[in-house]
């Protein structure tokens, strides 16, 4: 068994029109920029995939990564907690023009819904959001004298995730706070594709330090020196690059 995928292109080849795709990261940290850009490359060549529902904490920043995916018109719905950033123009313009749907979810509820999707828990109760506009239409129930709302699991067809080390079985480690939503999304997707800085052999990662066990990972692709969204944005990068 070896879950290595040779190319970024091949890694994103299974994502079809209309699918739900979880994309890891919190802002730029842990964002799988190269996987996203490979998906854009495919769209530029084939006009597919489109009509995607994307789950991410944010809505992109500038004109790279998730923002670029949205800018291409590939995303019809975004499920996120915080669609603001230093440069949120791409999402903001489409949203205000009514061209992209937004499901706004409190950040902790978003994380828990994804975990629930991965853990086979179809619904759970949380105090978060009770009495607010974001709880409208959700069942309310009292436990021990306190009101809670019921939230549903969130699952995806694919997860695109960034990790640090990955062995060929799919065991993963992450880099610092780039962990964030990534391990949860690995659990909640039918197919989880991970870009890692280095693919190593089984046994090269201490079993005590594995954060995501390989059972949650279906494919790995090596991106030795991944780009960082903040760095790209400080250089005013745009994807795809405009050829002069």
């Amino acid at each position, binding site marked *: 068994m070896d879950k290595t995928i040779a190319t970024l292109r091949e890694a994103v080849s299974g994502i079809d029109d209309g699918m739900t795709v979880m994309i890891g990261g919190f802002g730029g940290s842990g964002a799988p920029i190269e996987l996203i850009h490979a998906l854009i490359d495919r769209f530029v060549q084939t006009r597919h995939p489109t009509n995607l529902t994307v789950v991410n904490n944010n809505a992109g920043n500038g004109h790279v990564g998730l923002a670029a995916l949205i800018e291409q018109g590939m995303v019809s719905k975004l499920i996120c907690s915080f669609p603001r950033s230093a440069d949120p123009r791409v999402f903001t313009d489409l949203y205000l023009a009514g061209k992209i749907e937004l499901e706004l979810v409190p950040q902790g509820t978003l994380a828990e819904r994804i975990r629930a999707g991965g*853990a*086979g828990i179809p619904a759970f109760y949380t105090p978060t959001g009770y009495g607010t506009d974001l709880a409208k239409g959700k069942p309310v129930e009292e436990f021990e004298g306190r009101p809670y709302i019921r939230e549903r699991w969130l699952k995806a067809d694919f997860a695109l995730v960034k990790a640090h080390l990955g062995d060929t079985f799919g065991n993963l480690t992450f880099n610092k706070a780039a962990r964030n939503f990534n391990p949860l999304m690995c659990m909640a997707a039918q197919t989880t594709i991970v870009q890692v800085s280095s693919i190593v052999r*089984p046994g090269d990662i201490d*079993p005590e330090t*594995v954060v995501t066990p390989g*059972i949650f990972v279906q494919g790995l692709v090596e991106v030795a020196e991944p780009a960082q969204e903040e760095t790209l944005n400080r250089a005013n990068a745009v994807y795809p690059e405009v050829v002069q």
Partner: protein
Amino acid sequence: MNKLNPTQIAWRAAQDIADGAYVNLGIGLPELVARFQPPGRQAIFHTENGILGFGEAPAAGQEDWDLINAGKKAVTLNPGTAFFHHADSFAMVRGGHLDVAILGAYEVAENGDLANWSTGPNGVPAVGGAMDLVHGAKRVAVITDHITKDGKAKLVKRCTLPLTGVQCVTRIYTSLALIDIVDAHFVLREKLSSISLDELQALTGAELHVVGAVADLIVPDV
């Protein structure tokens, strides 16, 4: 009566495990399945108490009692192991991430109901992870003797013992046959050539359906 021994039943079950499959083996008889991975295939074994990818038992005296399986027997580690806590372990189970769980049974009904945790109100009840496994793994198989020690059917129309799960079993490896559960019916796939269909039916508590050919159940001396 000619029948497979437990090790042979385990051998047959092992033939259906794909390379790279994530597998949970119940305590006892199912544990034998791990011994018979076909050449060129490597399954990864999950244990409820938080290991993915454990290996064989250590030599006597070499036990590390922090490295045990769900049956509390000492195990070793294969390269590529991961440790995790119980909630993550059962997220793997309940979340449908295991490819197959192979469990023992007191009774299996033709609708897929399984009874394997309680023989009734006497004694101390204990359930462990069985109820989670039956609803989590993509495929739930049972390995069992075809009949009880006192000759009663274990494959039945409806379970009489307390259920572990409803409509969860899809394949049964017995000492006499290999039977699938399809649309709440027992469908006979393989049987020992030494037993006739009528004889097998007589030892089975619900109707055996035949859909297409019934292959010979052929198992080496193990």
